């Protein structure tokens, strides 16, 4: 058998040929399998893979829009975009990072904080992306580096736009500031429109007008390689820059109002009655908004937050104070409009008022009493008993309805973020908020602007402007016009006016006359601000912080400074052609006539006579002591 096999060499060769043929067939089949796979990839699913391939290399890069600028009424910049310069290191081009940083620090101050940030960012960025080693280079530092830059390949100065508030603390409470977008905000914004944007308006106008200021994102296609390096840019959709805002605000007036307020805590709001435009809005003390843009340090923030004077608190729109006697002309108007009172009808003041069947004495500020007073005198002398009686006759519901017409109890709707609405008390409110019934005595207290009644300086100024307009309430607004770009025409914003129901000019004249006599009358509570250049109509107020007991007398000297009454003043001028309506509140300022009225006068002087206020803290102290 062995021999048989050996003998058949031809058979052996034939066997091999068969086997080789089998292998050849297997090879062809295998290659056909590969071929089918290739057909599947390259023909059947070609489009799918083309898409994936494009997704790989074409990245859509958002281009953030430039934020709109904010100007005052004369075109003075209040919010600007300034290039800020950072020194960056491109790790790919630097052999020895540590040595380079050491050499750089010989040239420019590099703090431990800078090094820490660099170490943190280094692993997060790509090798060819600049990592900042220093932020906010000064011009001198930039120059110093520029001269030596040849020694530092891979180290560059990078510029980007960052928000800046050239007027600093003077406009902080009005303009507000932008800051880095936080997670909460991220959920509220249109993320695609903010792709590439890092900042968003946090407070003030910057927040309220975010939509206008931000603009719309643009895109460009970038061809990138596997490591993310951009090789080519194409097909741009340019971003639409944010709109510039022009405010009613006058920076000079704003500065003067702040100077007049000095270092006292308080607020000044000045409104142009015809338009409702806010000419000045000061809350004191203020703060520098600029550190918030780049991210204020925890310590600095804590210092501001914990400051007993609360500089971050915008008293002009969030400060809710009992309006005190500054409400009396509005109560009087309510009495006239509702027909409960007439201008001539006298009411008796014996120093106090008692509700029928009650023993509690509601006292007048003048313990001796005013005798019988008509409406005008009651306003001029700010007689409390007259208004107790009037409020009692009118009843809380009617009073509330008429006061609401002047904008009390609700935010005015001015175009600034964070405004509060004050509180216009009513039986319905008391039931809801405190689950208590309304007592008749509370109606009397509302009548003199005390108790639960709260109003913001902005509300008081807007309501006063409505009196100046003799019955037309203009919703206060800050932005007068917007503009798409520098060369584009200005787009004025729309005024929102509301005609008050009381159309009898005699009613308005009564009130204006009374307010005029507050300043000009012999017994007026603000007679110290009378002047020969123009005529002012106004009303002083003093609102209680500290409640005086039934049988005590109020002794200013004994009460701690922060428990003293708030001083208020509202007024407008000139009487016949009102150009400005002002509300002033000085926290713990004592009497309105002594403290608040002169500030209002200074603001009016500035606006009407173009008379600057010299800032002086001594002046402030002097006024307080009077």
């Amino acid at each position, binding site marked *: 058998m062995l021999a048989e096999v050996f003998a058949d060499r031809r058979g052996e060769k034939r066997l*091999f040929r068969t086997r*080789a043929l089998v292998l050849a067939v297997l090879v062809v089949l295998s290659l056909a399998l590969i071929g089918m796979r*290739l057909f599947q990839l390259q023909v059947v699913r070609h489009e799918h893979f083309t898409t994936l*391939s494009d997704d790989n290399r074409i990245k859509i890069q958002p281009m953030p829009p430039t934020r709109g600028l904010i100007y005052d009424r004369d075109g003075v910049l209040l919010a600007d975009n300034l290039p800020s310069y950072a020194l960056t290191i491109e790790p790919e081009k630097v052999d020895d990072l540590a040595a380079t940083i050491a050499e750089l620090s010989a040239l420019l101050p590099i703090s431990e904080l800078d090094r820490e940030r660099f170490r943190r960012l280094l692993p997060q960025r790509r090798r060819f992306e600049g990592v900042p080693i220093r932020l906010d280079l000064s011009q001198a530092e930039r120059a110093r580096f520029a001269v030596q830059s040849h020694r530092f390949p891979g180290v560059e100065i990078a510029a980007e736009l960052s928000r800046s508030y050239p007027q600093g603390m003077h406009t902080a409470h009005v303009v507000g500031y932008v800051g880095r977008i936080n997670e909460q905000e991220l959920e509220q914004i249109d993320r695609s429109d903010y792709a590439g944007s890092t900042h968003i308006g946090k407070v003030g106008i910057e927040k309220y007008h975010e939509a206008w200021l931000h603009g719309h994102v643009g895109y460009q296609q970038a061809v990138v*390689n596997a490591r993310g390096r951009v090789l080519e840019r194409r097909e741009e959709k340019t971003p639409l820059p944010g709109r510039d805002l022009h405010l009613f605000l006058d920076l000079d007036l704003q500065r003067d109002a702040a100077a007049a307020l000095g270092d006292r805590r308080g607020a000044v709001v000045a409104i142009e009655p015809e338009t409702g435009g806010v000419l000045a809005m000061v809350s004191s003390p203020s703060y520098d908004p600029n550190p918030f843009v780049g991210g204020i340090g925890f310590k600095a923030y804590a210092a501001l937050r914990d400051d007993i004077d609360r500089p971050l608190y915008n008293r002009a729109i969030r400060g809710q104070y009992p309006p005190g006697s500054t409400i009396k002309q509005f109560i009087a108007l309510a009495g006239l409009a509702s027909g409960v009172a007439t201008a001539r009808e006298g009411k008796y003041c014996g120093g106090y008022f008692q509700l029928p069947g009650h023993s509690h004495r509601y006292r007048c500020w003048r313990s001796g009493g005013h005798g019988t007073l008509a409406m005008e005198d009651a306003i001029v002398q700010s007689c409390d008993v007259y208004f107790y009686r009037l409020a009692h006759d009118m009843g809380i519901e009617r009073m509330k309805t008429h006061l609401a017409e002047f904008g009390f109890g609700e935010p005015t709707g001015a175009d600034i973020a964070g405004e509060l609405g004050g509180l216009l008390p009513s039986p319905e409110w008391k039931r809801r908020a405190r689950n208590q019934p309304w007592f008749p005595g509370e109606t009397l207290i509302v009548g003199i602007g005390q108790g639960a009644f709260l109003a913001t300086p902005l509300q008081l100024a807007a309501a006063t402007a409505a009196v100046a307009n003799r019955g037309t309430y203009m919703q206060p607004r800050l932005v007068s016009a917007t503009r798409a770009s520098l060369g584009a025409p200005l787009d004025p914003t729309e005024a929102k006016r509301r005609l008050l129901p009381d159309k009898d000019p005699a009613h308005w004249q009564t009130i204006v006359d009374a307010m005029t006599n507050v300043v000009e009358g012999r017994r007026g509570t603000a007679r110290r601000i009378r002047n020969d250049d123009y005529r002012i109509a106004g009303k002083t107020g003093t609102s209680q912080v500290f409640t005086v007991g039934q049988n005590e007398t109020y002794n200013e000297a004994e009460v701690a400074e922060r428990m003293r009454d708030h001083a208020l003043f509202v007024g407008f001028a000139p009487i016949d052609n009102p150009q400005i309506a002002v509300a002033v509140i000085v926290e713990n300022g004592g009497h309105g006539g002594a403290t608040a009225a002169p500030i209002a006068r200074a603001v009016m002087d500035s606006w009407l006579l173009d008379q600057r206020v010299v800032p002086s803290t001594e002046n402030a102290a002097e006024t307080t002591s009077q």
Partner: protein
Amino acid sequence: MAPHKLRIDRDSSGLDGGLLARLHLDLPLLLLLLLICGLGLVVLYSASGQSAEQVDRQLLRLGVAFLLMIAIAQVPPVVLSRWSLPLFLIGLSLLLAVLLMGEQSKGAQRWLDLGVVRFQPSEILKLALPMMLAWYLSMRPTPPRLLDIAVVGLLIAAPVLLIAKQPDLGTAVLVASAGVTTLFLSGLRWRLIIGLCVLGAAATPLVWSLMRDYQRRRVLTFLDPGSDPLGAGYHIIQSQIAIGSGGLHGKGWLGGTQSQLEFLPERSTDFIFAVLGEELGLSGVVLLMLLYLAVILRGLSIAAQAPDAYSRLLAGSVTIVFFVYLFVNMGMVTGLLPVVGVPLPLISYGGTSLVTLMLGFGILMSIQTRRKLLQSE
């Protein structure tokens, strides 16, 4: 009969009696190899990011490899047959040496540093094992008996296991396929073949248990590349994107975005086939496959015409090793097979496999050009 044969041979070799004949070169095979290598350089230039330096270096390697091919072509099969056993033993002992004192690189122990050259002994086995089996089987009766099969099994298993242990799955597959092919060509009975296949399938769990973690992960990733798109699956996904986006006619030479923008990893070495697929499309790929097929068919035809069993078996198995090379590589790059480090023969950047392959072709040429001499004996 004999003169008739001679005439046919004269026809098929064309330049018979000329330089080619004197150098023992086979013209069809030589032309095919030159075409493939030429195409390879063109693709390499693009895949290397237009690096003339890499192309130059590859050109130098090709020159060396062709010289070695010509050199081995001068050695008659009879001499090769005599070298078979010593070469196999040397290769096996070198594999052992690698395991004991080889150099580590990328988690595998494959290299042996001989002072002058650093090389992978496993490469030797790609030729030494077919030679050894051809030598052994050519002395045994046909078809092989069970005892012979057992011996052959041991001869295959020894180097394959040593290589797999390094671990170098790609080379182990190639060496094993060389051995199995030789056995198959030796006339192993079909029922035994079927039996061995069943046995092999049954052994799969055993193989799985012997595999290293990274090897298992590769297999798993191959089965579901999306499970690890940025890790091990990245290669497979990106190469399929490259090939698929190439379409029928490709994105044009140097125009492949996947390859030029470096999304495709290992683009000038193991994954160079994807560059070809992306830039020259299905047409370019099919052209290369046809060239490869022609080489294989020529190799099988040389084997089929060889006069003695040793030459037949050796030629056949060398040819099939070449096929396994390209099949495993193409299968891997197109996502049909798991990722194992096997280069695309004659095209991928690198010299090791090139030298082995060209030596193989030298053997084929030696066998082909001495056919008539042996026959006339």
